[in-house]
């Protein structure tokens, strides 16, 4: 019956600008996915734990405060340490192009910068989440 794609959308750190994260959450919901929206001020530990309990297929992290190089890799690291490296992690927000290679090297599969149409990130998630029975 319903194999729903489940995605966690979180805002790590202190940044309070959630317009983009809320838009992504709604767009994913309208595309038929179940979105666990965790809100502001999440620590990397809280995000990883929630992702595991909710058994999500992907985690989307939104950050506009410049702290992305610290916080995003931390989430990936914690997921890995708990045996959940198959959860797809992607990011968005104010992230300079020049930082993207570093983030990708740290395990963030994609970074969707301002102006990315929803069609693009929806397609990305659908095509890249793990397919198991």
């Amino acid at each position, binding site marked *: 019956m319903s194999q729903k794609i489940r995605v966690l959308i979180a805002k790590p*750190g*202190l*940044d*309070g*600008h*959630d*317009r983009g994260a*809320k*838009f992504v*959450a*709604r767009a994913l919901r309208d595309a038929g996915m179940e979105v666990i*929206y965790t*809100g*502001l*001020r999440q*620590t990397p530990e809280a995000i990883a734990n929630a992702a595991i309990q909710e058994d999500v297929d992907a985690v989307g992290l939104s950050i506009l*405060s*410049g*702290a992305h*190089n*610290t*916080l995003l890799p931390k989430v990936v690291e914690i997921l890995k340490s708990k045996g959940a490296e198959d959860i797809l992690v992607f990011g968005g927000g*104010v992230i*300079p*192009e*020049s930082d993207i290679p570093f983030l990708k090297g740290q395990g963030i599969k994609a970074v969707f*910068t*301002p*102006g990315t*149409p*929803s*069609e693009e990130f929806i397609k990305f998630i659908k095509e890249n989440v793990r397919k198991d029975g």
Partner: protein
Amino acid sequence: MSISAEFAKWKEGAYGKTVAKFPERKQVFKTSFNEEIAPVYVPGFEDPQYLETRGLPGLYPFTRGVQSTMYRGKFWTMRQYAGFGTAEESNKRYKYLLGAGQTGLSVAFDLPTQIGYDSDHPMSDGEVGKVGVAIDSLKDMEILFDGIPLGEVSTSMTINSTAGVLLAMYIAVAEKQGFTPDKLNGTIQNDILKEYIARGTYRFPPKPSMRLITDIFEYCAKNVTKWNTISISGYHIREAGSNAVQEVAFTIADGIAYADAAIKAGMDIDVFAPRLSFFFNAHNNLLEEVAKFRAARRLWAEIMKNRFNAKDVKSQMLRFHTQTAGCTLTAQQPDNNIVRVTMQTLAATLGGTQSLHTNSRDEALALPTEDSVRIALRTQQIVAYESGIADTIDPLAGSYFVEALTDSIYAKAKKYIERIDELGGMVEAIEKGFVQQEIQDSAYTYQLEVERGEQIVVGVNKFQVKELPPSNLLKVDRSIQVSQIAKINAVKASRDNELVARKLAEIKAAAQGTENLMPKILEAVKVYATLGEITGTMQEVFGEHKESVVL
């Protein structure tokens, strides 16, 4: 009275008296073909609505402007928001900007400072110095304003839940420089309601936050008399995705909530209302934006007069700062943003703003470089000196379109305010999620329009080019976090820790009661208690706010 009679009266009276005291920038303002430009232009026919709904500059209902001479007397204040990394670097940037002709300072703080965490707190990891300057104690504040005489500048601080503490630090630094608090000129944003709605740097729940705000109103009304104690903000509401009507409606509804709170705390409307100021967004649609500012002025004036019975005209004046819309900046083809900011500058100045911050072209990507910041400042200067729009007041008045839009925005915003009243006021409306839902629906609709190509964003969904990633962007690195932590340790080692503990205990006791917290905060700040210690102490009493999400 007829319009022409009123106009003559104004020219002699409100206008004439002002010019006598404060001469205009020029003896005569002239066109390129030597015709004199009048201070303001009025309908040549008898419009029965005109005086009641438009009036004249500096007169109720202030639709056409809050001052009688506006930019003919003095340009708007060019006030660029800045601050990043360490207090030392920010101090250098302020001196640069003041040297380049900026007329007021505007301080940006990092997120830990805005929320009340010291740089060594776990939640601060990765955030120190990133979006503004890190201030952990009075020591940092002293460095920030080193060599800048606070009694001679006007400083705006974008700080909300921790506004009381930062204001106390500012006062303490000024006192050390030899300036008494009544000499100080400036603003603190101090608008917690919009934090819950759109910006997110809240710390305490609504009730204690409102108490802190009214404590600040009261304290400044007595001691820091030239200080603007709140900048009721619509900017962030617009950035979160609202439309122009919602921006006006929710901001003014916030204003009503603050006025109600102050009156409930026993203050007289005409004592604190003159010091309320506003902060709006200057978006792309130039004509709509001009109408928006005019509608806002009229609405506030009427509310102050009729709803709150304010007698002092200064209570009725909606004075505002504007920032050009951050959300319109594109990462693609960043130089295009210079054009956008120019349009938005025109919107704000044709709309009669008192001060303006213009965004830099690279701000969709990072904090601005020195070059980009200079261009942003030059944009304002070019509009001021070269465009001629400052030579007469409210020049777009009388345009059928602009007047129709003004009326429409006024009426629709009024309806929203009635709705919010029905819900029990702004605090209730926020707790119920009504405001957030309205904003998100607008944001979602807009985004879908962009995706469908119904709304064009040049360079993003039309006229794209293949671009190399931008270079030379400003980067803030981790060493700041390290050096701030070292600074905190040094401060803690050299201060009288017992005295600090006592001062903190006094804050706690005051928080549990009803006495004004500002004097206690000031005392604690002077003995080098840190921002985190003071905020943490208050949290023990006030608790911490948890967001209520509406999606």
